[in-house]
């Protein structure tokens, strides 16, 4: 695939992510509206959110003005080069910023200067994996700052939570994060969790859980059960859409694991807002497809 077409496809991927809410998220919000019941103001809030998403899609404008950090998860075969993909993604990012699909969101922490085009050290954030089969798979997350701020990492045991070094301890950390977030991370949110790993890999893996479909079932039956239990428990907190109260506090709980050092037990919780922006694409034999419209 030539560089121009690759860049164009990646631009389209960014456009889709920023301006259209994925079908699994829309479906989860519809379930929320049904759960809130007729006439509930929490349900009205959810409807406003869906209406906003509809307007964003129709007008090709960002669902949320905080178009977030760009996280590219890339798998590429022998017919692609990492450097070329990265260059094309950078160019697509600049163009998306120029076309108001993205807000300039990369700020130098020392000088305070905004780079103006979303490029800078660590921006976009690339995760590359080589594979044997030909072709390319790119999954993009646009992760907003408000929800990123309410994420948290725990080190078990945690005395404050009375959380031990077991699955029950993991459960308590997740409850703590969602309680502390209240409406600040734009509830209803989705939580991606990693039990284990080191500080860096753990947070990374918690974000990768956000690439899962909201309707899927965790292949690990123990984690699948914990996810189901937590969905119910977290929605019982009563925080609700925007933190104004209601039965819909989370749209999904996705838990992964990594082996840990005997001495370490980290639990990393990444929170994403209801404006859960992701888009996936595949390239096979020069043919570009997107997972949804």
């Amino acid at each position: 695939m030539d560089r121009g077409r690759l860049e164009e496809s990646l631009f389209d991927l960014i456009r889709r992510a920023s301006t259209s809410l994925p079908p699994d998220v829309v479906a989860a919000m519809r379930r929320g509206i049904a759960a809130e019941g007729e006439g509930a103001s929490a349900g009205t809030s959810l409807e406003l959110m869906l209406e906003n998403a509809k307007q964003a899609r129709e007008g090709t404008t960002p669902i949320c003005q905080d178009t977030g950090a760009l996280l590219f998860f890339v798998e590429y075969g022998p017919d692609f080069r990492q450097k070329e993909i990265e260059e094309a993604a950078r160019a697509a990012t600049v163009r998306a910023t120029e076309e108001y699909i993205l807000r300039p969101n990369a700020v130098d922490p020392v000088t305070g200067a905004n780079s103006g085009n979303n490029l800078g050290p660590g921006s976009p954030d690339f995760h590359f994996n080589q594979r044997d089969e030909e072709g390319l798979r790119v999954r993009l997350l646009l992760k907003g700052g408000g929800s990123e701020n309410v994420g948290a990492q725990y080190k078990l045991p945690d005395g404050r939570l009375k959380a031990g070094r077991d699955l029950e301890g993991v459960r308590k950390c997740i409850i703590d994060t969602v309680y502390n977030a209240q409406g600040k991370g734009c509830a209803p949110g989705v939580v991606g969790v990693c039990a284990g790993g080191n500080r860096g890999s753990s947070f990374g893996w918690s974000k990768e859980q956000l690439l899962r479909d909201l309707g899927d079932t965790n292949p690990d039956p123990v984690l699948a059960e914990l996810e189901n239990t937590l969905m119910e428990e977290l929605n019982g907190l009563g925080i609700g859409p925007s933190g104004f109260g209601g039965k819909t506090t989370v749209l999904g709980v996705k838990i992964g694991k990594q082996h840990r050092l005997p001495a370490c037990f980290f639990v990393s919780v990444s929170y994403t807002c209801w404006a859960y922006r992701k888009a996936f694409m595949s390239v096979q034999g020069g043919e570009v497809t997107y997972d949804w419209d």
Partner: protein
Amino acid sequence: MIGIKLPVSEEEIRKLKAGDEISITGVMITARDAAHKYLVETGGEDVKDLLRDSMIYHCGPVVKKEGDKYSFVAAGPTTSIREEPYEGPVIAKYGVRGVIGKGGMGPDTLKACAEHGCVYLSAVGGLATTLARSVVEVLDVHKLEEFGVPEAMWVIRVENFPAVVTMDSHGRSVHDEIEKLSRKKYEELLEK
């Protein structure tokens, strides 16, 4: 739905109660982290007249420039709690009557609202395209070069901008109430 026209009097603001749904029309100004620091540390000469009896919107918009005219493309609220150390002094110093954002603010802001006649209003977080349609005109911008697009102080004219009073000038905060309610459940879940 209660209509509020800016500039607004202290008397009118004091009538508002937590839970009231309002619709705002008039000129307001966006300010977030860099702007709040600036407003506290300086005399805010370029915006102080605009702020009196008006409202601050915690928002870092996506802004389109055509010729020398700006317009808002996406403009939902940002998380307000980051401005907690600054908001009380800003309300006191500039005579601001309303602060619009998301997620609520803390005890210092609640106290300043009571003392100086101000309210905190919640807009629905993430409603960027819908709310940008309520911003009918961008009149001016301050500190654009220095702060960058999201952090600059944008002077905007809004029409029927929807928001809910979640902290009033009588010491009531919906955010505190929800937190208290969820605290009980939270403690039960941790004990389980």
